[in-house]
C-alpha cells in the first residue's frame, strides 16, 4: 500500500488551505525530513515535511490549488518494494477526504509540518490534547473529532460531559462530508461549551463563544504589543478636498478612461509623495538603529471576514494614480478572497486606514508595527469654514496621523502633515 499524504490542519480552526507549490516531482526520491510542498493559510505559509521514505508516486492535488480540504489526499508515496502499479487501487479521487487518517500530517511546530502517525488524539496544532480515557473511548466509538471539542474538566481536560454535549449538539463528527466541514468548525466549539472558565463572566447573560481564529489571535497580540510598547502620539489636520473632488471627476470622466480613481487613491498617492518628501517619517524603530526606508511601501487596511489585513502597494510614491488605483483594487479583492501572498501583506513601511465611507468624522489608529506611522482618514463632508474673514462652505476631511515617538518627533510629523495637506489641497501637484 502506498503511503498516503494528507492535507494537514495547520491551526485548530483550519478546514482548508491552498496547496501553493510542490517542491518535489513525481518520481523523486523522498527522504524523511524532506520538504514536500508549501501550504498557505490565513497569514502564513507552512511546509509539509515527509516522515516516511520512498518515491513520490503520484501528486493528487496540483500546484496552486485553492481550498484543499484538510485530511484530503494530496499525494502518494511508494514504499521501497512498491512500483507504480501499487498506485492503482489507491484512492484516485483527491477530493475525498480521509475520515480517520492512519498516516496524517500534523504540524510539529509553527512553520514545519511532519507526517507523524497520529497518536491517540493529537490536537490540531500538535500540542498534547487532554481528555479522559472515557471521553476518548466514547469519542472513538462515535467518530467524534476531539480537537473540535472544548474541554470543561480540570485545566480544560475533555471529560464525558463535554463529549455528551458535543454529541447532543451534533458537532465535531468526523463524517466524510467535506463540504459541511467549514460550517461545522465555525459553530462547533461555541455550541459545545463556552470554552472560557473565567469567573468574570459568572454573572453575564448567556453568550455564544466564538473561538479565536489564528488571524484574530495575531491581531490581538500585535495590536496589544503596539498599544503597550509604542509611545503613540497623534497629529490632526483638516484638509479641504473640493479641488481634489473636481480633479477626480475630471479624470474619471475623460474619454476612454479605463479606471475609476477613488478619493482614497488620491490620499494614498498624496501620503506616499509626502513621505517621499519627508523621508524621516518613512522609518521604523529598532533598539539599535532607526531604519530609514528608501521606498514607500504603502499598506492599506482592508476589512475582511473575521478581521482585517493590510495589503501593500510597493513603491507607491513612484506610481501614477491609475496604476495605484488598479493595484489597490486588485489587492483588496485578493484580501477579501483570502488569496494574498505573504509578500503582498508583509513588510509595508506606513499604513493608511480609511473609515470615511462609514461616515466617521475622524479617528485615531494603533500603529501596525514595525512601521513608524499610520494615517486615519475620515469622511469628506461639507463644513462651514472661514475664508478671508467670511463664512464659506467647503468639503473638508479630517486626517489623523499616529506616529511612533521613538523614531518620529513632533516637528517631523508636522512636516509630513504639512506636505500632505498641501498635496491634497492642490491635487494638480500629484500629477507631477
Amino acid at each position, binding site marked *: 500500500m502506498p503511503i498516503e499524504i494528507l492535507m494537514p490542519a495547520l491551526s485548530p480552526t483550519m478546514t482548508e488551505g491552498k496547496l501553493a507549490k510542490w517542491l518535489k516531482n513525481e518520481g523523486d526520491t523522498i527522504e524523511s525530513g524532506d520538504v514536500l510542498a508549501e501550504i498557505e493559510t490565513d497569514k502564513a505559509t507552512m511546509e509539509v515535511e515527509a516522515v516516511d521514505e520512498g518515491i513520490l508516486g503520484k501528486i493528487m492535488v496540483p500546484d496552486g490549488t485553492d481550498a484543499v480540504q484538510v485530511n484530503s489526499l494530496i499525494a502518494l508515496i511508494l514504499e521501497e518494494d512498491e512500483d507504480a502499479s501499487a498506485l492503482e487501487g489507491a484512492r484516485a479521487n483527491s477530493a475525498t477526504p480521509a475520515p480517520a487518517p492512519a498516516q496524517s500530517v500534523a504540524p510539529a511546530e509553527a512553520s514545519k509540518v511532519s507526517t507523524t502517525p497520529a497518536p491517540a488524539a493529537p490536537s490540531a496544532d500538535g500540542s498534547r490534547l487532554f481528555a*479522559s*480515557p*472515557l*471521553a476518548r*473511548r*466514547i469519542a472513538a*466509538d462515535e467518530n467524534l473529532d476531539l480537537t473540535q471539542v472544548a474541554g*470543561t*474538566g*480540570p*485545566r480544560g481536560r475533555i*471529560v*464525558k460531559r463535554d463529549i455528551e454535549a458535543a454529541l447532543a449538539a451534533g458537532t465535531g463528527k468526523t463524517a466524510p462530508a467535506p463540504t459541511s466541514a467549514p460550517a461545522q468548525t465555525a459553530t462547533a466549539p461555541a455550541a459545545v461549551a463556552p470554552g472560557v*472558565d*473565567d*469567573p*468574570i463572566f*459568572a454573572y453575564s447573560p448567556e453568550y455564544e463563544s466564538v473561538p479565536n481564529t489564528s488571524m484574530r489571535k495575531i491581531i490581538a497580540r500585535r495590536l496589544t504589543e503596539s498599544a503597550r510598547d509604542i509611545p503613540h502620539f497623534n497629529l490632526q489636520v483638516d484638509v479641504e478636498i473640493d479641488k481634489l473632488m473636481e480633479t477626480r471627476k475630471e479624470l474619471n470622466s475623460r474619454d476612454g478612461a479605463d479606471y475609476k480613481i477613488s478619493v482614497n487613491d488620491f490620499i494614498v498617492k498624496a501620503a506616499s509623495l509626502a513621505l517621499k518628501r519627508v523621508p524621516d517619517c518613512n522609518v521604523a524603530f529598532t533598539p539599535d538603529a532607526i531604519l530609514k526606508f528608501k521606498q514607500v511601501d504603502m499598506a492599506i487596511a482592508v476589512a475582511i471576514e473575521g478581521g482585517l489585513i493590510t495589503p501593500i502597494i510597493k513603491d507607491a510614491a513612484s506610481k501614477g494614480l491609475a496604476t495605484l488605483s488598479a493595484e489597490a483594487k486588485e489587492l483588496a479583492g485578493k484580501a477579501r478572497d483570502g488569496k494574498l501572498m505573504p509578500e503582498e501583506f508583509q513588510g509595508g513601511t506606513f499604513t493608511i486606514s480609511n473609515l470615511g465611507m462609514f461616515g466617521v468624522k475622524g479617528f485615531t489608529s494603533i500603529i501596525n508595527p514595525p512601521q513608524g506611522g499610520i494615517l486615519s482618514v475620515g469622511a469628506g463632508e461639507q463644513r462651514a469654514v472661514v475664508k478671508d474673514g467670511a463664512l464659506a462652505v467647503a468639503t473638508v476631511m479630517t486626517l489623523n496621523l499616529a506616529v511612533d515617538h521613538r523614531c518620529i518627533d513632533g516637528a517631523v510629523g508636522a512636516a509630513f502633515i504639512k506636505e500632505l495637506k498641501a498635496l491634497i489641497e492642490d491635487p494638480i501637484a500629484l500629477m507631477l
Partner: protein
Amino acid sequence: MADTNFDVIVIGGGPGGYVAAIRAAQLGLKTALVEKEHLGGICLNWGCIPTKALLRSAEIYNHMKHASAFGLSVKGVDFDLTKIVERSRGISKQLNSGVGHLLKKNKVTVFDGFAKLLGDGKLSVEKDGKKVSDLTSKHIILATGARAKVFPGMEPDGKLVWTYREALVPKTMPKSLLVIGSGAIGIEFASFYMTLGADVTVVEVMPQIMPFEDAEISDIARKSMEKQGMKILTESMVKELKRGKDNVTVVVEKGGKKQEIVVDVVISAVGVTPNTESIGLEAAGVKLDERGFVAIDDYCQTSAKGIYAIGDVAGAPCLAHKASHEGVICVEKIAGEKGVHPLDKSRIPGCTYCNPQVASVGMTEQQAKDKGLDIKVGRFPFMGNGKAIALGEPEGLVKTIFDAKTGELLGAHMVGAEVTEMIQGFGIAKALETTEADLMHTVFPHPTLSEMMHESVLDAFGKAIHF
C-alpha cells in the same frame, strides 16, 4: 474596637465551615467564623470521629475475644465502658483544639456565639441571649449543619430514648437496645452496642438495611450482623414508644401485624433535619428547597446575593466530606479562582463503619438498571483473597458496575474488612473517568485487600484470575 467587617464570614465551624474559612484565609480573604458551640461541629465532636473511636474499642474487643483463632491466649477479656467513652471524648477534644489552632494559624477570626442574618450583608452574633457583635460582609457562607430528626412521640429524653448524643456517652451498658433506622448512624451504634454484648434490634422501614447501598452488599452485611446476633426487622415501622420506669415497650408494625419489644434503651436514628431556624433566612431572602434544605446553585450560591450555603444545611448527602468539598468550591469561586468545578454528587463516596464495613461510590446495580443502562457487573469475594484469609477476614465482597458500551465505571460497592480505606481507589478512577482498561492496566500490590478491586474489575469482563 475589634474588626467587624470581613471579606467572608462563615457561620458554623463544622467540617464544611472551618474548611471553607481556612481556604478563604489562604486565598487572602479577611475571614471570620462564627461557631455557637464547638469547633469541628458534629462530625468531630458528636459524629464521625467519636463514633470511630468507640467502634475501634469494640473492634479490638472483638479481636481479643477471638484471639485463640490466631494462636493467642487471652484470659479475662473485659471492658470498662467509662474508659471507652473517656477515650472517645479525649480524641474529640484533641481534634477540636487542633481545628482551633488551624484557624488561628490561618488568621481566621473566630466569634463564639450564634449568628443571625439581618439582610444586606449584616449579621449579629449573640451569646447566651445577649448580642455580642454586629458583623458585615459581602460574602456570608451558611454552614449551620443539621441535627437529628425527631418524630412525634419519639422525642429523646436522654434516659430511655437516645439520639446519637446520648448514645456516644453511655453511663451504663444497656442490656437490650432497639435502634430505629438503619442508615449509617443507626447501624454503627447497633454494631457497637452489639459487639459489647447488648441485645440489639434494628427496625428499618425500607426493605433493606442501609437503604442507599447496593442491595447485594446490604444483604451480605445484614447476614453477617445477624450471624453475630443482631435482630433486624425490615419493612417495619415503630408505631409507638411506651416509656416505663426502666424500660421502653416498642410497638413495631410489619405488614399490618404488630409486635411489642421491650428494651432498656431506644436509639432514634431516623435521619437528620437541617438547621435553618432562627438564623434569619427570611430577613436575608434565602429560600429553601421542597425538602427544607437551603436551595443552592452549582457553586453554593443561595437565592440571596452574597449568601452561600454548604454542607448538611444545603442538602443531601449529609456527609462531612461533601461539606468540606463544597466549602472549598464556594470559597474559591468567591475568590475568583480559575478552574473551579461544581461538585459531581455521583462521585461522593459513602462509608459505614459497622462490622463488617460498607463503602461505596456511584450507582448501585439497581440504579444503573433503572436508568436502562447496559451494564457489566464484576464481583470478587474476600474468600478468594490471600491477604483477607491471612487477616482472618474471609467475609465480604467487592462489586463493580461498568457501562457495557463505554467501559465507564458507574459504581463500586464493597463490604468487608477495611473497605472504607479502599473505596477511594475507585473514587479516583471515577474522578479521572478511567475505563475498565485503565483499571486493568493498573498494577495492584500483592498481598493486599486492594487486589480484590482489580479482580472485581477483571471479573466484570470475564477475566478474573483467582476466582
